[in-house]
């Protein structure tokens, strides 16, 4: 077998690089697909939430006010991301502030967890709390992925190639807005 497929690897030395423009298109496909997958994930969770809340034991707890502050933070991060995307000389600075706001957001979420835990509300306290903890954790994973991407993009900031990073980042922000609305009003 090894002999048979010998030829495949014979000329292997450099990976076959795609031209920049094609590469950009594949990134675009990848990003939008992942956003679609992410939307499906949060839709599934939301549907589960709406089903689960019909049980007799449903008792919505008041979320810490901090989640609204966090919403504002993530909103601001979207704005700075948008400014960074526009490019220009200050793009890197805007991207830096986006990352800072992102970190602040995650930290804020962690504090919100601790506030809730201090009130004696834990993962298993009520179904509403279970959803809160689970959804924030799942969402934080998405934010963390976004932050990693932004950090990687910091080098390239300024040459106007932040469109896809921005798309993901806006998705993450919108997802949090949706989660907060869901947990508060439904």
């Amino acid at each position, binding site marked *: *077998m090894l002999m048979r497929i010998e030829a495949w*690897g014979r000329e*292997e030395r*450099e990976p076959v690089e*795609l031209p920049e423009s094609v590469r950009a298109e594949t990134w675009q496909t*990848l990003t939008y697909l992942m956003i679609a997958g992410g939307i499906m*994930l949060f839709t599934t969770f939301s549907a589960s939430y709406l089903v689960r809340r019909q049980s007799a034991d449903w008792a919505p707890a008041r979320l810490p006010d901090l989640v609204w502050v966090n919403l504002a933070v993530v909103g601001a991060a979207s704005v700075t991301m948008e400014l960074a995307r526009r490019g220009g000389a200050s793009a890197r600075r805007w991207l830096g502030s986006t990352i800072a706001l992102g970190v602040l957001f995650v930290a804020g979420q962690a504090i919100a967890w601790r506030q809730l835990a201090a009130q004696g509300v834990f*993962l*298993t306290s009520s179904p509403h709390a*279970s959803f809160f903890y689970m959804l924030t954790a799942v969402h934080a994973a998405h934010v963390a992925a976004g932050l990693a991407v932004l950090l990687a993009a910091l080098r390239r900031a300024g040459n106007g190639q932040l469109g896809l990073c921005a798309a993901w980042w806006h998705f993450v922000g919108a997802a949090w807005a949706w989660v907060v609305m869901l947990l508060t009003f439904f």
Partner: protein
Amino acid sequence: MAIAQAVETGKAGHQAHGRDHGHPAGFIRKYIFSTDHKVIGVQYLLMAMLMSVVGLGLSLWFRVQLAWPGKAAMTPEQYVAIVTMHGTIMIFFVVSLALSSGLGNFSIPLQVGARDMAYPFLNMLSFWIIVPASAIMILSFFVEGGAAAGGWTAYPPLSALSGFGKVPRGSPGSGMGQTLWLLAMALFIVSFTMGGLNYVATILNLRARGMSLMRMPLTVWTYFVAALLGLLSFPALTAAAIMLLLDRHLGTSFFLPSGLVVSGQQAANVGGTPLLFQHLFWFLGHPEVYVLVLPAIGIAFDVIAAFSRRPPHGYKTSVWALLIIAFLGMIVWGHHMFTSGMNPFLGKYFSIATLLITAPFAVLGVNLLASLWRARIRFTTSMLFALGLISAVGTGGIGGLFLATATADLHFHDTYFVVGHFHLMIGVVTMTGTFAGIYYWFPKMFGRHMNETLGKLHFWGTFIGAFALFVIQHFQGFGGMTRRYFEYSADYVQPALALNPAVTWFAFLAVGAQIPFFFNFFWSMFKGKKAEANPWEATTLEWTTATPVPHGNWERLPVVSGKPYGYAEGANGDAHRMQNAEA
């Protein structure tokens, strides 16, 4: 599409490529941690073959128990675990790996005229995540309580009652085995999702110049639709798995309701809804059927075109049928749950919606059949498997009529009718498609032909065995024989029971027929008849490059000038026009 640039790079990147300049890359980078889609495709095939030994072995073991109770040295606890693991391994670690991942990886870049997948490194990662996933799946047999035993559908509460913390234990297999099952499935989802991303990006962005969407071979179309379906439906299982894990290990109550009493022990859970899991599971599970079945049909279209020397009938309608199947496939999951206790009104809706899917499937079936009309059929092994697929799609498909009708499902739900039906669809259809693909592309993979005599032996054994085995199971289902039973005692089931030894003998035939295939596969790699670049006189792009396929697939990327199936009547009989032929 920026194909032109790709061609330019192709020129630039490969002008220096020649035998003399080749640096032999290290063995490990070439064959183990290779990023070449062709190597990865073969790796997937080998992995699937390895797992099929386990999965099929398990099935023979419990078939012996079913036909001759007590002769198989098996306890009821082992039985449920074995049935569960057979289902999981065969669906996710054999069929998915061989068909979706294996042949998909090998054929997609070659058929669209790309040098490799869009993300070769991600591709390699996808494969290497499957290795620990497979290992974990198999190792779960050896933990306390044995492997997962809640059925491949893993319905809670049985699958959620882990016995960890305050959660009571539902059955021996609900403990560590179920956790490892979930872990392996999580890894599988990661791998399959990354694979799907790669497929879509490759098909959308890396097509050769001139290959519009409507010039793609049907195989590529089916992989494209299947990958999109997978990407949109797997998140539902991901969410369900997260909630199930939380229920199992951290004491939440997503799926565990109030008032549970398990083995006399009262559970602390409140308010969960077990039905929710079923909805989420089948929101993935039903599209997953199409994720597996559609590529098999796509391969059959390509194979039938090549060996009947004419373009497949109704290319456009087939593509539309695929898209409609994909859409409808996402909104009919509830037909798996007619008797589950969901609202009877929903049952009616799902029944009506599901029966609509018969229409696009009928179009595919008619197109497959009509592709033989006025053809000049060459009966190679590959073609035989594709023809077998037509029969299996028809037979399995009409079984779906019974199950999709809620009223009839009152009798058929969870009987061997279901077993026979889904084995025909995601067992026989997928595997005949896979084998058709393997015999078809083997010369391209290894530069040698597979032995035709052994191949025919393989086909006849597989087809006769599998067809008889699963059609008889339909009759057992008519007789009301329930699934997942270790032994039977009821009066009404006795006539159905009498068919069990026959089913087992046919199972031995179908599985035994794989022995010549395994032998043929490895023997032909070294000793098979040498193959030229286009041995089948087929027209799609993979046959335009040299055999064995060089790294990067083409010296110069092909430029597509026409439809994928340029078969026609020529002056001296057959004629064919390659897809990249100059106009």
